[in-house]
């Protein structure tokens, strides 16, 4: 379980499926179910237009960023009560490709992205990286 803390919002992502690789990183096979829970706690009442949970990949490295959202779920609309942790389960199906990759100039990073859509404010966001690759690939 990892967490992101912004001044007003604490976001945690817990993954239930996948294989533990160490350092909080989990590995998923193409076609495997990615299941988990997003927990959000705010310091004050926050009106939330949408609480998006996305399963997406992006590139890192020398080149400009490529990005694609593969699945997206709007898990909550309403008010996040101050001090009350609220948990939202999610479930995605891991796609066939692209696999996670660490090269010389290019890295492909998969992540569960949480985006709290707050009106008239900067959205608190959090990314929880994971690995998508077959067991036999590097």
């Amino acid at each position, binding site marked *: 379980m990892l967490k992101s803390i912004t001044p007003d919002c604490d976001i945690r992502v817990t993954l239930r499926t996948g294989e533990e690789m160490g350092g909080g990183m989990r590995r998923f096979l193409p076609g495997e179910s990615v299941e988990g829970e997003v927990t959000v706690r705010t310091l004050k009442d926050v009106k939330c237009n949408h609480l998006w949970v996305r399963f997406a990949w992006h*590139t890192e490295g*020398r*080149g400009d*960023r490529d990005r694609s959202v593969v699945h997206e779920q709007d898990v909550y609309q309403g008010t996040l009560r101050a001090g009350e942790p609220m948990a939202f389960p999610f479930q995605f199906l891991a796609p066939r490709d692209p696999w996670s990759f660490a090269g010389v100039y290019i890295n492909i990073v998969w992540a569960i992205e949480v985006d709290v859509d707050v009106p008239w404010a900067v959205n608190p966001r959090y990314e929880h990286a994971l690995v998508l690759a077959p067991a036999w690939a*590097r």
Partner: protein
Amino acid sequence: MQKSVKPALGNSQRGCLVGFAVVWTAFSLFFLVMALRDAGSGPGFFGALFILPFLAIGIGLLCFGLAPAFRALKVSPPEVLVTSDMLRLGEPFTFTLRQEFKAPLHVESARADLVLRESASYTRGTDRYTDTHEQILGSAYAPAREYRAGERLELSETFTIPANGMHTFQGKNNKIEYFIKVSIIIAKWPDVKEDYPVVVVPERYHALREV
């Protein structure tokens, strides 16, 4: 049964390059002539000096674009055949290069490499750059020798896509691709340097075979 593979830089792209080079060179020549008319005075001479590198770039692009056409006077276009151009990880495939000579030529070296290429494109200011990194996964060589007119150079090798490697990935700015890089160095004649793409799909060769 082998399939023919087309080079990564096709004839239409080369045609566009030649067209661009012609326009570039024509403009450079025009400005050079205008500058040389005033060469008697100081600014005209320096203007001509300034334009010379632009003219050199235009001529260089023209030579690069027209090299295959010029080379074809003595060497037929290379023919590259592979057993499959849609490969799985761990899959072996046979590659064959055929190159026919129309005139006597001395080939100093002929080489084909299977490479994994990472291409990362980025923008800095108003310019666009692409950096590449290549990893050679297999090589085949043909020895240096003289070829008579009508003789054929044939290079064949079985390569294997690494079983624990990465599949082909083509993003807008980032690409991970497999190529067969062909390089034939010919004495006193334009060299053959072409890349032939092969696509690697995200599947394992042996896993499919067992099913």
